[in-house]
């Protein structure tokens, strides 16, 4: 049974303070009789803690483009210009700590994924299902296994043949076809057999960077990591392999990684 680790200190900037709101007959009445949303007017209209996707960025330019105050911690691996933020293309990728840009999740999804950086495998993050995933940027279009394989092979940090970890819900379900399809496509497009590892269940992450495949339905989530653990299945040349990986093994890779995607 996995143990819930302590949460890392929040990387979010302190909440912007708003001037105190004077009690008016309207909001006094709402407070007295109860607010339908359960929040005060000040809470309802307060600014977000951080701009979506720019959680750890130093500052933004006058045009709104995020910039780092210091070098990208991924070093030369990420880009030649280490002061860029996701290749100056924040609409198509987000990179909360500047460690990895093989991330197809939408900006603002990063709770807990700031430290997701497994070592020894090439990790790709996306919203997933047994048969499809959501593509990058804001188009919200399905990506096929063929398209994802093409995307991975075109990433500068990926070496053909290196194992790939899909952090995408249910993509490794035995009855699903997505992870198997990606392994088949990676093999056929690169000419090298490639192992693809993907969760058999929904893939969860928490604030401290602990990730895991857990069988609980996301629509009825527990408040602690006491859900039934799933496994990470492996696929090669389109076929389900006997070797499976536990959440602890996958998190072992994650803890080992501190720079870069590989």
């Amino acid at each position, binding site marked *: 049974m996995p143990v819930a680790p302590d949460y890392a200190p929040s990387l979010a900037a302190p909440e912007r303070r708003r001037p105190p709101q004077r009690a008016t007959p309207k909001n006094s009445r709402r407070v007295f009789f109860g607010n339908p949303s359960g*929040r005060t007017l000040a809470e309802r209209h307060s600014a977000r803690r951080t701009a979506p996707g720019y959680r750890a960025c130093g500052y933004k330019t006058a045009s709104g483009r995020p910039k780092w105050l210091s070098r990208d911690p991924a070093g030369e691996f990420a880009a030649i210009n280490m002061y860029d933020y996701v290749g100056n293309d924040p609409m198509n990728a987000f990179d909360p700590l500047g460690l990895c840009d093989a991330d197809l999740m939408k900006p603002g999804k990063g709770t807990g994924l700031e430290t997701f950086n497994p070592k020894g495998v090439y990790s790709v993050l996306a919203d997933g299902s047994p048969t499809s995933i959501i593509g990058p940027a804001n*188009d*919200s279009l399905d990506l096929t296994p063929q398209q994802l394989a093409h995307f991975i092979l075109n990433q500068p940090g990926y070496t053909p043949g290196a194992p790939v970890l899909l952090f995408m819900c249910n993509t490794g379900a035995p009855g699903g076809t997505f992870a198997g399809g990606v392994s088949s496509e990676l093999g056929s497009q690169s000419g090298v057999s490639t192992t693809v590892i993907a969760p058999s269940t929904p893939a969860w992450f928490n604030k401290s960077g602990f990730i895991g495949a857990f069988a609980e339905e996301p629509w009825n989530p527990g408040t602690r990591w006491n859900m039934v653990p799933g496994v990470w299945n492996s696929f090669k040349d389109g076929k389900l392999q006997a070797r499976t990986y536990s959440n602890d093994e996958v998190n072992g890779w994650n803890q080992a990684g501190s720079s870069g995607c590989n």
Partner: protein
Amino acid sequence: MRKLILLSIVLLIVAALGVVRFIDSDYRGASPIAWSFNDIRHRTLSLEDKTKVQIIGFGDSGSACSATIGTNESQAGLACEWKISDGKLFIFYSKQLRWELILLAKTKKEFVVRDGAGTVSVYSQTEN
């Protein structure tokens, strides 16, 4: 006579409280508004809740949407499909209907919706 006046005052106060309570009671009398694609196009809907997390992202076109579901502590990202039918917004995961959202009110910042179980929720909306 004095008792009658006091009783009348009490009844008036109770009636006034009831009216105010009804107005504030989660849009109970609101008529549904039909969803349109323009309501969700390129938008992210975030449930306003202290513990639950539901963030649904829509794109320019297509029928796919992303959904981050969970609690403040743990979350999962899902690839879902959406459909508008009879003015209602339906969201599916793995071919199974997960949400049926009926729009009750909308502003530039928020949607007030009622789900299939009758629960009224507020989603803030931001442009992607």
